């Protein structure tokens, strides 16, 4: 049974495995009724308006208004595309995985309706290569939807068409960046593109393209079915709706919890996730995945879990993935592990990210080996400053933001680890582990 603090909307009926089938989706949550109504009765602008009025913000990390993004696509007769970003690779994030596995048809229906809103005739789900079984689930769901006439040519006899393809990525974090995703989908090396032009104007194969996260698109059927007012009853003024939050790290019950946005962070961590393990206390959290600046427990606990509150505290809600570090976690080691992940995943296209991640890793390795001085901490901070805002895409910032926050907020601990390691107090520090074993927290 869901916890009383949960608000299950996207995960409604998720405990029933039949939900993953077309019949189950129809029986349990009345699935595809919205698609049918939208395709048969609604015009593009009507759907678009419902999405814009709902205030639904992108659930992939940037939190940009989904309806507004869809409205940026130019009108007119040209090939347009919709890409569902299912390349969920951020350490700490595993909510799309569950949404796709338990309720794939919700996503398919959402994509079909969003395609209507954006005028796209072709849609793609770009799913990370490691999500193999989830991709199988999606493949089956897409096949069922084609069979039932919800996809393909002349959908439900309305004369409207939509092709949907599930594309498996080859396993690179950078392909979750929307323009790198497009390049990878086109068969090229997955490197971010220069923006502008933005994908809404010139995206996949040069055509206008709408790119949204799995969770964002999964919200679409209910918003169109029940209206913006219904949606806005959940969440806050600036963060309407519910959010599936992935909680991992030092808590008793890690997992996905769907909450109404604005729930106090303390409730999220202590009630839903059960709080820290016995005898431990929370030291810091990443409030929105490994790329969000860490907050100390004191900073975080009294904040409502919403886009605006996290931004106000100098961090971000991101993809809604909370990683909890308890008092046994060495922050300098956590910083090193974070930096290593981004160093490993940097595509190498732009200089600040390519060299900055590499240099930061080398400096942090010296810190935990005891071969650094406090001056190196200043250099680490300055290098993070030099990365931020100067890169081609946000990958560089994704390392710089948390690392810089850790050095700033836990400087004493960095100096202590440095000094202790130099004196050989902690001989068990492992810094030469192969890169493959580092990285993704999932």
């Amino acid at each position, binding site marked *: 049974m869901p916890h009383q603090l949960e608000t299950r909307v996207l995960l409604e009926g998720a405990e029933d495995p039949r939900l993953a089938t077309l019949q189950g989706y129809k029986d349990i949550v009345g699935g595809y009724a919205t698609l049918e109504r939208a395709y048969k009765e609604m015009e593009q602008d009507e759907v678009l308006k419902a999405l814009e009025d709902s205030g639904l913000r992108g659930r992939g990390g940037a939190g940009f208004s989904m309806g507004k993004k869809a409205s940026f696509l130019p009108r007119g007769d040209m090939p347009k595309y919709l890409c569902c970003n299912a390349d969920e690779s951020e350490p700490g994030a595993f909510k799309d995985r569950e949404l796709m596995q338990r309720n794939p048809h919700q996503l398919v229906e959402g994509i079909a309706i969003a395609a209507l809103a954006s005028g796209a005739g072709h849609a793609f789900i770009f799913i990370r290569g490691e999500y193999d079984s989830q991709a199988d689930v999606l493949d089956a769901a897409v096949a069922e939807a084609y069979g039932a006439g919800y996809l393909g040519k002349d959908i439900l006899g309305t004369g409207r068409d939509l092709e949907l393809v599930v594309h498996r990525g080859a396993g*690179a974090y*950078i392909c979750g960046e929307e323009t790198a995703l497009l390049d990878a989908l086109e068969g090229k*090396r997955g490197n971010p593109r*220069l923006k502008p032009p933005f994908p809404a104007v010139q995206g996949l194969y040069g055509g206008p393209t709408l790119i949204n996260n799995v969770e964002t698109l999964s919200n679409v059927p209910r918003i169109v079915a029940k209206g913006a007012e219904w949606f806005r009853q959940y969440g806050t003024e600036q963060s309407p709706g519910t959010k599936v939050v992935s909680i991992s790290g030092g808590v008793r019950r890690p997992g996905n919890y769907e909450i109404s946005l604005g729930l106090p962070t303390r409730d999220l961590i202590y009630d839903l996730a059960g709080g820290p393990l016995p005898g431990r206390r929370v030291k810091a959290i990443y409030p929105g995945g490994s790329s969000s600046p860490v907050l100390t427990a004191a900073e975080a606990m009294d904040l409502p879990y919403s886009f605006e509150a996290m931004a106000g505290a100098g961090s971000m809600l991101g993809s809604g993935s909370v990683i909890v570090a308890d008092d046994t976690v060495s922050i300098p080691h956590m910083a090193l592990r974070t930096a290593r992940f981004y*160093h*490993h*995943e*940097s*595509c*190498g*296209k*732009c*200089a*600040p990210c*390519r*060299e*900055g*991640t*590499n*240099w930061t890793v*080398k*400096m942090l390795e*010296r810190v935990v080996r005891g071969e650094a001085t406090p001056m190196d901490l200043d*250099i680490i901070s300055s290098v993070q400053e*030099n*990365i931020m*805002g*100067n*890169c*081609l895409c946000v990958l560089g910032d994704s390392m710089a933001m948390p690392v810089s926050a850790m050095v700033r907020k836990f400087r004493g601990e960095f100096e202590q680890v440095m000094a202790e390691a130099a004196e050989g107090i902690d001989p068990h520090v492992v810094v030469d582990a192969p890169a493959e074993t580092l990285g993704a927290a999932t």
Partner: protein
Amino acid sequence: MSPEKREVTLTIDGREVTATEGEMLHDAAREGDVEIPVFCYEPKLGAPVGACRMCLVEIEGIPKLQTSCSTPVRDGMVVHTRTEQVKTAQNAVIEFLLVNHPLDCPVCDKGGECPLQDNTMGWGPGKSRVIDEKRHFEKPIELSPLVAIDRERCILCYRCVRFSQEVSEDSQLQLLDRGDRTYVGTFDDRPYVSPFQGNITDICPVGALTNYTYRFRARPWDIEQAGSVCTLCPSQCNVSFTVRDEKVKRVITRDNEDVDDGWICDKGRYGFEMFNAAERVTEPRTKGGGKVSYEDAIAKAASGLKARLGKVAAIVGDASNEEGFLIQEILRQGLHSSSIDSRPAGGPGIDTILELANPARQAKVADIDDADAILVLGTDPMGSSPILDLRIRKAIRRNGARLVVATERPTALDGGAEAIARYAPGQASYFVGALAAAVGGGVENIATPVAETLREAGKVVVVWGERIGASATNELLGLADALNVSTTEGAGLLEIPETANARGLREAGVLPDAGPGLGALALQGRGTEEIRQALIDGDLDGVILVGVDPLRDFGDTAAWTKALDAASFVVAFSTFATATAGKADVLFPLETHAEKDGTVTHPDGRLQRVRPAAGRPGDIRPGWQTLANLSLALGHDTGVTSQPTAFAALTNAVPFYASITDEAIGGRGIRWQDTASASSLPGFERQPEQHDPTASDRPGLKDEADPSGGEIHAPGADATASAPDAGAGSPDTQRERASGESVPVAGAPATLALGTYRDIWSGPITELNPPLKFLKPTQHLELSPADAHRLGLASGDKVRVTQGDHSLEATALIKERTPEGVCFLAEAITGANANGLLNGHQVRVQIEKLAEVTA
């Protein structure tokens, strides 16, 4: 580039700058005298990538710094490039780039001319905070036999990779691995093979890509740069010679977008060691190889020629305009002969040349960029004018030009063509006529698919090869009119001639039927092939050969040998000791384009100046001097005493060059069509005459002056004779006919129609330049899979190819796109020269598989 782009005004560092709408901020700033440092940005490579982040600037109203290389200017934009925020970012980028850079400047060839050094000094933090170990790669290693790669120095700016992918379109260079482990390489570490690969060493902003021909040869403070023009092919690319101790050590680009777009081919880049080859002719010689003084040589030549007054001919190839002018003075004024030509196989009459020279019909190189459609006719630019291959690719890729190719042999551009027509060797004239008729809406014929693309297009640029022959060249006028090129701005014809300065020589009067300035002559002389025949027949007795090697480069080697043996007096001017030079009674050395001082004329009419860069080896004197002295010895004073007086004599004699001065030519050249004297072209004031493309025969064309053109009725050549309604060029027809006539005697070897071509790497370029020796071509018999099957041949089989009494050995090479019934051999291949099989007519060859020689 379109004229409707409006101007915008913006402010950069407090200065008001005017720029064209859509222009990138970096370029606008440069025009406003504000320097913004860059590494990856290079407009020649196409769209910016924004990878290096060096060009970040502050734009009011935008919170984050923006890359100026990828930000188009807007009216009223306020930009700052020197604020603290920008400086911090610039320092940061330099620091990042140096994190993994080895800083081995003292032993790096780039040191002293390195953008990374310059930007580090100009925009870097001035001190390093990096104490960590840098990444390591094996270095240097061979990216190709010509280019070394040092991956530790590489700053991953993407330039070389973009060149490979977006300019030469070979896509061999790739970025492999990712993050700071990224490196530039090729699939499976195969060598990078491309005739343009040297360009990556020019655009590399660090010492990561270096030429093996230049590594450790000189430091920037040892060298001088000398701008000149490469005359190894008609592209006439602008180059800069790196000279140390009077010797050329390197050839690099000297951007001129009107000529070469800032690229050069590897022939021009690496073909400089031959300047000092042992095979160079370095002093005048007499027959038997004896060295003589210039004075004696000139006296001997003059007396030999004077004794044959009126019976001397001249054939000119590699020569400057001034040299061409002087040689025709010698012939016409000194020796009372008009038998002079500059074309390997003769060519059209002066009427056609004048019609084609009409500025209204002329396309310039830059017109290719904006063309709606491009027709490549009868030539493969990759072999005949490589830089145009890149230019045409660029037009397709960046501006969506539509390409159609109509040639005998498959070309390197076929992949980008919308329509391709293959006509049988020798059928160019018929094909061009058919194409003109098809464009004009005539009945459907072999050329219709090609014509359809051209008919719909507005601006059509026709890039055509001189090799199509005189008769087809006459037909071109009809095609030009059907395409309305003379009334369409930006449309026109652009010739790729057989020799580098063909246009200049013709305009200087090196033609049998026209003097300097293309003025028609009352006394008409013989063309190249008539000269050959007249020498054999004894109607001519002496010949002057300037920069030509008929025994290698001209068709019908046997006839040329006979002709040169029949001539009782041969004066040759030659750069290298060739077989032809060996026939000379008096042999004079020629300068290379690194040594010469003179002008040349690009096929689009641009006069360019070749400037002396290197010292002349041995006892070589300037060509103008030798020729002027020879003329004087023959009793004709040309008044030429220096290069400037030679140039003045030329411009005085060629009315449409009259207003061109050395200053006007400058470093970029000037098209005579763009000067006031253009109207002095004979017939200029006439509107281009409209030619009826459907008329089969037109008056005024001198087919009889042209033995290679006209209808072809060689014995046994019926299979490829014109048959306007049957589509002689269609492979099916050819196959049927070829098989129908291939069995006059049971068991006789099959015959195929022979086409020949000039390979980019044939000749002295690969024989006399050690670094290019690995590219020396061997003879391959290209044929279609069907013919190969019928003849029982596989690729790699050794074959004997026979025509009449002549034969050569080749290796069979099955090429998918070769039409059936036709085979191709390369010209000028030492030991197996296809010119030896030609006889002035369309020939068919017998092919016989040679038994494997068991070891």
